[in-house]
């Protein structure tokens, strides 16, 4: 039962898309939003709970100050106003992953509102997105559906609930309707989520790992006939949890809406679910009476009224906005547009910055992070940051190369060994005897052997064909298992033959 779609180009001929995003950011605080249970990923199920996070009878919430600080900082970074008085509210609905059967959230008085963020499309075109609000709330537990064929909810016989994630602090960032993106809407969607991810990472308030659900996006899409001013009915696509999926889901929904509208149909206001495997959405359920969340002020919590002086202090301490930082770094490092974009897309900006700061050249830093390290991470199927190679390692490798202790070829082996957890570069070079052979005696023996075996080459060189010396270097390098400095070998041969 796949839905009809129009081609993207055809859709764009007749309609203007209007987008909207609700991005949930999981904070990396040590504890949960309203209780002191650890905020940790991947532990034994139900071992990171307290009576509060389980919603046992009699429990009460207490707000995590660090989470409020993170929310204020994010609000400031999004150029929002910070509410002098903000309240928590209860959003009432029954679902087994929600321990109290209400979510403690914020409703009409969010901590931050009326902001904007300027993002860059792929070619560097800036686009300003208005932010409606950013509010604090708590995450739900995790459901695993069992007994069905697919592990999906449909057809499952029962579900298991792990409340470790229940109560983890979230900030939900809601945009105002985004108009004027035209056929760049899918690209804009990706760029927006990329920018939010980059922002929360630069603020250090979230691990920002989309594959772990640290950043989750719901994308609202509607179409209006070209030139119209009244928005169409929107769909809300959930479960869009990678940058690629955001772009694809928006594109798909535009095509689906266009097909419905072009055939004279009307869009149902509903939740859609994105499926990466089929690259399409399916209908969740229409908005209904069940969406009567009966919000009311959370009586167990008191208002948050941030001290203006504290807000100003946090504002003053904000890191440079990612876009400005990028501009500055690009100029400093002297990368080309393409080189820099590749670095950004590979997500190694921080690593290169640290590497350069620790004393390596910008070119060398890029060479290693975008080269061997990226290759290895790709082979191992992990994030570059998770490989175990640090900026300090790269600096150390560079200095070993500079001192001619190792060469580039050995350096690549060293990186592999670092990734295998064998220690730091110097340690590995020592333990594995990888240092370049610099003892001339050893080299001269090898050279003598080579010359003895190739008298014709010796004659050629002596006859003035200096470039023929390469044929002698090869066997020497082989004999020293690549650990000789080829330049030095050349020097020694020429010296011996009296050609220099």
């Amino acid at each position, binding site marked *: 039962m796949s839905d009809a779609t129009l081609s993207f180009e055809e859709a764009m001929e007749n309609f203007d898309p209007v987008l909207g995003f609700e991005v949930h950011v999981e904070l990396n605080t040590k504890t949960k939003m309203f209780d002191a249970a650890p905020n940790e990923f991947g532990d034994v199920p139900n071992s990171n709970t307290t*009576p509060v996070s*389980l*919603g*046992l*009878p*009699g*429990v*009460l*919430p*207490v*707000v995590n100050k660090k989470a409020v600080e993170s929310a204020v900082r994010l609000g400031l970074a999004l150029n929002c106003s910070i509410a002098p008085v903000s309240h928590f509210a*209860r959003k*009432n609905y*029954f679902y*087994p992953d929600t*321990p*109290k*059967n*209400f979510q403690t959230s914020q409703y009409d008085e969010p901590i931050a509102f009326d902001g904007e963020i300027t993002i860059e499309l792929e070619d560097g075109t800036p686009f300003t997105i208005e932010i409606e609000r950013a509010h604090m709330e708590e995450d739900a537990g995790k459901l695993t559906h069992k007994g069905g064929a697919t592990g999906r909810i449909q057809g499952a016989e029962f*579900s298991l*609930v792990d*409340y470790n994630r229940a109560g983890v602090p979230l900030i939900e960032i809601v945009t105002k309707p985004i108009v004027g993106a035209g056929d760049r809407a899918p690209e804009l969607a990706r760029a927006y989520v990329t920018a939010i991810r980059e922002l929360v990472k630069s603020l250090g308030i979230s691990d920002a790992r989309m594959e772990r659900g640290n950043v989750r996006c719901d994308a609202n899409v509607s179409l209006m006939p070209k030139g119209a001013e009244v928005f169409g009915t929107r769909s809300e696509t959930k479960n869009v949890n990678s940058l690629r999926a955001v772009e694809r889901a928006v594109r798909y929904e535009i095509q689906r809406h266009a097909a419905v509208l072009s055939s004279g149909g009307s869009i149902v206001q509903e939740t859609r679910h994105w499926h990466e495997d089929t690259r399409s959405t399916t209908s969740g359920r229409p908005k209904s009476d069940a969406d*009567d969340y*009966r*919000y*009311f002020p959370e*009586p*167990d*919590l*008191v208002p948050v009224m941030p001290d203006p002086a504290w807000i100003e202090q946090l504002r003053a301490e904000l890191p440079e906005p990612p876009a400005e930082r990028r501009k500055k770094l690009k100029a400093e490092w002297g990368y080309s547009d393409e080189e820099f974009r590749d670095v950004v897309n590979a997500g190694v900006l921080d690593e290169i910055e640290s590497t350069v700061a620790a004393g390596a050249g910008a070119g060398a830093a890029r060479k290693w992070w975008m080269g061997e390290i990226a290759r290895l991470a790709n082979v191992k199927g992990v994030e570059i940051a998770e490989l175990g190679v640090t900026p300090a390692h790269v600096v150390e490798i560079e200095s070993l190369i500079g001192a001619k202790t190792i060469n580039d070829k050995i350096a690549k082996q060293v990186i592999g060994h670092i990734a295998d957890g064998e220690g730091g570069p110097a340690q590995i070079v020592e333990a594995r005897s990888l240092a370049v052979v610099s003892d001339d005696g050893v080299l001269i023996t090898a050279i003598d052997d080579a010359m003895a075996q190739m008298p014709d080459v010796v004659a050629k060189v002596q006859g003035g064909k200096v470039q023929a010396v390469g044929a002698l270097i090869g066997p020497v390098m082989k004999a020293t298992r690549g650990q000789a400095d080829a330049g030095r070998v050349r020097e020694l041969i020429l010296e011996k033959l009296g050609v220099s």
Partner: protein
Amino acid sequence: MTQNIVELTAAELAQKLADREITSVEAVQAHLDRISATDGEPLDAGSRSAGRSGLNAFLHVNTEEALTVAAEVDAARDRGEELHELAGVPIAVKDLIVTKGQPTTAASKMLEGWMSPYDGTVTQRLRAARMPMLGKTNLDEFAMGSTTEHSAFGVTRNPWDLSRIPGGSGGGSAAAVASFQAPLALGTDTGGSIRQPAAVTGSVGVKPTYGSVSRYGVIAMASSLDQVGPCSRTVLDSALLHEVVGGHDPQDSTSLTDPATGYAAAARAGAAEGGLKGLRVGVLKDLTGEGFQAGVEQRFREAVELLREAGAEVVEVETPNFRYALGAYYLIMSSEVSSNLAKYDGVRFGRRTLPDDGHLTIERVMAATRAAGFGPEVKRRTILGTYALSAGYYDAYYGSAQKVRTLVQRDFKAAFETCDVLVSPTSPTTAFPLGSVDEHADPMEMYLNDIATIPTNLAGVPAISLPAGLAPEDGLPVGVQFMAPARQDARLYHVGGGLEALLTQANGGPIWKDLPDVVRAVQDLSDANVPGATEGAAR
């Protein structure tokens, strides 16, 4: 000897323990004996919901742990350890407060058999003071009611007349202290659940300032109104208990930082000669007259007259917005109830009921669990609250009720500009017969019992109820209520201690000197109700 121990007030008992005239084990055992002599036998061995043939004040008796704690206190005292003033003095705990090692039911089938893996803050404080917990007392299910008839485990009876209600929701705690089953008890008060039972059982009950006692570990009914407080036979005893359980708790965001001290001293100072001189007492015109039983009105007037004679300045004050308080209360309370009780769904703890038709989706299981686990009053309030919060009605109901709350606060503020304390009868009537309120015919009738107690919950201010004597027409206890500004709880103990001393003097003793023989009354009732009870007793 046993009889003597149970008739001691907590302060007297604490003194005798300190003086080593008796041991804590003796004290605990005496109260356990009293409980078994007065709470009666199970009316139906197969079903807890029938309750017991006597007072049925306790849902769980904590015999073993109470005696163990008592023995430890005795041993500690023998070793000369420094102990809390109330160490070794037993206490009963309303079964709305969670306790590790004892069941907590909220008098609901929903939680039957549930054991909390954690202690509430007040429970921890009782343990820290080493007060043996005698057990958990009966209440209206989830504290919703004014009669304790809405318990899923049988009604609690009034020790003054077993055919009458003990008030509610804390009928169990009030009946327990009034009948000498315990010198002290903890209650909770959302709209009068400590004070109204105190009034109709001739005991003392205090609703402290909102935030004075931690709510952590107290099963929530209406979060912005709930408050834990002491129940006892004397004002001083309540003051002592308030000092044990009160004070700041970082686990309750609405907890005040004020230290819980000076209450007992205030009670003693008020009782001293001339302690009430110059005190400005405001009689609430809007909480007397029409709708109040004649005997209640009479004893109330006499109490006010005693205050005047003792040198208090008595004035009448108007609180024009109190007439809207009951309506606002029911909207706010039910709204918060509808949300607070959502967690009882058969997923994480407590009861799970499968639908009759075997249609096993979680939605159906939740709905079947809640249908079977909750009693009618809980359902009625949940539905009302769901309505008051639902889209399109929020502003008219919940929003408006919150505004009325502001108006009631303003009335209090104005009254306290000219008065130190305010006074009214606690309840419009004395205890009425069990089964006399038909909520299905008129659901508002029961709610009217709370008319005098509700305004203080809306405003968050503290109030105390103490016995004003027996109504001439029915010989049943009448309560008088004092109210003070927020965080001035000490003032209540002062005036309460003062009036109590005046009344004791005027009546030639405390109110309980007139309490009928409860053991005998229970035995008579059991003989009438429990088949075979006579033979049982004879063996």
